[in-house]
């Protein structure tokens, strides 16, 4: 923390500055077909200085903590802000936030870095092997990664915060092939499995080895399963697929920087424009979406964001209405200016940077669909005809977050309230507001789980962030299904 204060002490009067010193440690293991094909340990350490001078930003970062390098980096950040200042019409202002002095450490039962490597290798190899229930399983995979991020934040306003964020995750994936058909099944989720800001207890709870045979058998069963039918049907999404649906169609469009056009050059803009705030009917009355960085164990959980603003829980969509954005200190002020409000809007603490070498951007924390009532079993029993889809396989959405298409690994037909035949290659597509307005049932708290998305991309230069999404299975009426 002293180093951060030392860097801040080098900032000349008359400008805002903050510094982040970040030290990351990661361990990753991947097995394939019984062979450990990746075993890696990585570290990265550096600092980034953000300057706001005359209404323009400058940012410089370095891995070199020598006095000369610190001086050079601070000077470069100031020069960059001065260079930017010549080309701006609108001066950036920051919302007023109380500078915090604080400390936080992810509560974990078992620090993943204290677990012997041997145990992790044995677990993954056993889970890899257990998937191979038949010769048609052509690929079996298992993976694990653990991450520890220590970061110190200090600002010229007097904030001084240190945090240690720990997260880890694991998963398995079986691939079956016959002729030109190729089918995958994953557990507990696709794209690397399940991730959370928890310790190694999460990995043990997954019980990968016990689930592996079922995953292998399902991958094989998909080879002979019927194609998912095409048409407009009722759709029930499992929590792990709904998590990505929330991520893409609620999380991203409610990022205020995107809505204000700051991501137009890469990721796009948003159909949820400021003039719609408080007015747009985003979903049906049962749809409530929150951004909650305080949820224990969520992959997007922390105590302070990378501007030093405390973690918060806010409603983005309440009773179906679009009521709030994910915001930063800069965009909170800009939104007030656009809406003609003098409310003195505050940041809701969504600024996150992927490393010391990147500036913080508005990122999702844990963006959740709040639970409703009843069990998945009840929901299926209440559905005359429909399709139940689970585990994401493909995802794509347009650059204003309206037209989307998702594919899942597996689906089952629902007939007369009962799960029937297995279906392969399921897909569905729609337009975001119409889709969420067709939501007529959300399962209860017992079915609710926070799914981790460790690979959310945004920004230039690119930043990959880890976010969480709480969801329980939900039903959507008359969705366009099976159009691949």
């Amino acid at each position, binding site marked *: 923390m002293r180093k951060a204060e030392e860097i801040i002490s080098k900032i000349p009067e008359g400008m805002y500055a903050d510094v982040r010193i970040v030290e990351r440690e990661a361990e990753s293991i991947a097995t394939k077909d019984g062979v450990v094909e990746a*075993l890696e340990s990585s570290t990265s350490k550096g600092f980034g200085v953000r300057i706001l001078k005359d209404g323009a930003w400058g940012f410089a970062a370095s891995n070199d903590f020598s006095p000369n390098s610190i001086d050079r980096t601070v000077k470069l950040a100031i020069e960059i802000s001065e260079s930017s200042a010549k080309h701006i019409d609108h001066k950036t202002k920051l919302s007023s936030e109380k500078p915090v002095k604080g400390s936080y450490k992810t509560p974990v039962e078992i620090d993943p870095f204290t677990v012997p490597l041997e145990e992790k290798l044995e677990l993954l190899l056993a889970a890899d092997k257990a998937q191979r229930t038949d010769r048609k399983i052509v690929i079996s995979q298992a993976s694990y990664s653990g991450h520890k991020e220590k970061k110190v934040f200090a600002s010229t306003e007097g904030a001084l915060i240190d945090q240690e964020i720990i997260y880890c995750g694991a998963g398995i994936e079986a691939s079956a092939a016959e002729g030109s058909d190729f089918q995958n099944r994953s557990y507990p989720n696709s794209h690397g499995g399940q991730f959370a800001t928890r310790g190694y207890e999460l990995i043990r709870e997954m019980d990968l080895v016990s689930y592996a045979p079922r995953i292998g058998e399902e991958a094989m069963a998909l080879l002979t399963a019927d194609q998912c039918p095409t048409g407009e049907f009722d759709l029930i999404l499992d929590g792990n697929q709904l998590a990505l649906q929330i991520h893409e169609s609620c999380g991203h469009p409610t990022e205020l920087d995107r809505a204000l056009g700051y991501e137009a050059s890469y990721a796009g803009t948003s159909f949820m424009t400021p003039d719609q705030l408080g007015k747009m009917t985003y979903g049906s009355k049962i749809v409530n979406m929150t951004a909650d960085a305080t949820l224990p164990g969520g992959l997007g959980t922390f105590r302070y964001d990378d501007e030093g603003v405390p973690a918060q829980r806010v409603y983005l969509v309440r009773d179906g209405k679009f009521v709030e954005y994910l915001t930063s200190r800069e965009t909170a002020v800009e939104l007030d200016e656009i809406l003609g409000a003098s409310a003195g809007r505050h940041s809701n603490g969504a600024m996150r940077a992927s490393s010391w070498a990147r500036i913080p951007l508005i990122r999702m924390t844990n963006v959740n669909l709040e639970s409703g009532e009843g069990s998945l079993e009840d929901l299926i029993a209440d559905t005359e005809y429909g399709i139940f889809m689970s585990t994401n396989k493909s995802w794509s959405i347009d650059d204003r977050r309206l037209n989307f298409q998702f594919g899942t690994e597996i689906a089952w037909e629902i007939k007369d309230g009962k799960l029937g035949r297995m279906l392969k290659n399921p897909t569905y597509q729609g337009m975001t507001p119409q889709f969420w307005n067709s939501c007529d049932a959300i399962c209860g708290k017992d079915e609710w789980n926070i799914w981790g998305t460790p690979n959310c991309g945004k920004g230039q230069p690119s930043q990959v962030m880890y976010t969480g999404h709480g969801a329980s299975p939900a039903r959507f009426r008359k969705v366009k299904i099976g159009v691949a």
Partner: protein
Amino acid sequence: MLGEAKLKEIAKKVLGYSGAQEVEVLLFVTDHGLTRFANSQIHQNVSSQDLGLSVRIILDPTSRKAPRGKRIGVASANSFDEKELKNVVARAEVLAKNQKEDPHFVSLPKPQDLPKVETSTEQATPEQRAEAVATIIKKVKEVGHGIVASGAYDSSLSEVAVANSHGVWAYHAAAASDLSTILLGPHSTGFGSDLQKDPALINADLVADRALKKVLDGEDPKDIEPGEYEVILEPQAVGEMMGFFAWLGPNARMYHEQASYFSGKLGEKVFGENITIVDDPLDEVGFVMPFDFEGFPKERLVIVDSGRLVNLTYDSYNAGRFKAKNTGHALPAPNTAGPIPLHLKFQPGIKSMRQMIKDVKKGLLVTRLWYVRFLNPRSMTITGTTRDGTFLIENGKIKHAVKNLRFNQSIPEALSDVVSVGRDLVRLSSFETELGTNQMPALHIGKWKFTSGTEF
């Protein structure tokens, strides 16, 4: 820049810290600057310097008489301090000692002659970047029409070096300057870009003019029914499609795992006869790379010859495992993606864009694709939407702009139905820009499957 001599000294030290049977060290030095603009003003201006040190240790736990496979561990850090060099080697050794044997690993590459290449190491200064951005913003403001400019000017310099205990030494330094803009009108968007080795060659006027033409031509987009259309994909759109081809197409690992559409088709006709695709890392029109991330020399490789799949891409691991020739396509270890081509290039055709449009009776001109993902990797079917300018062509002429559409399209079906290949290749980023660029033409394709529309 640290320079070749300094990096060689560091690599030598690292190799000396381990007594393992095989050791590989991969070094990166990066200097990166980026100026980003939106709503017609600069809103982000950043600079960062970093180092990368990655060490791969290979232990052979058995005698030659009873080989059991080798144990491999990789550790990395972002410092070249003496203490950190030793620490990374020690961490990689611990991992390798605790690792299980990999029966497929044969050996790290042995030393080979590397091709000589020339490239630029000039970077754009923050002032140069700001001036180029100001040129675009000024032009856009002059045009009016409620158009605002967004975009980025990215300037990067990389040094990459590879050494191993067999005596491999490879060093390369390169810079890239990449200016792009998306212009937002009230009902349309337009895209323009310029990717150069030297910032002095960046033409901000041209970037602005290209994007302005698109946004103005697209001002009043009309609804269009989804369905199958003849299309002309502009080079940017072709590049976005071919990124997915690179990953799952010629990748030897995917091929042998039965995960690729190409699996079992080596030597067979996979695309139309007018399609020839090479990986050309030494073509100085693109961003050259003389070796892969194992220090193995790169060379021109024909992948698809007149529609026939003739070669796959290999790294040392997969070449050893599948008893094939290493083609120099290793990515940094540990690599679970497989060997991937980073310098794809089409054999160009003879037609200009104007001539290609003239050939279309009724179809769509697509500027870019967006959010492309595999829908079905095994059939190489992708999905995504159009972006930044989609236009209806009727009787050889652009009639009007249309609203964006979603597509679900098999790449092999599209490349088996190419009416003509454009004559002009455009350089597009494929990896870390300064180390890899594809060269893509426009393609006139007989049928492209659009499945739904959107509201803009």
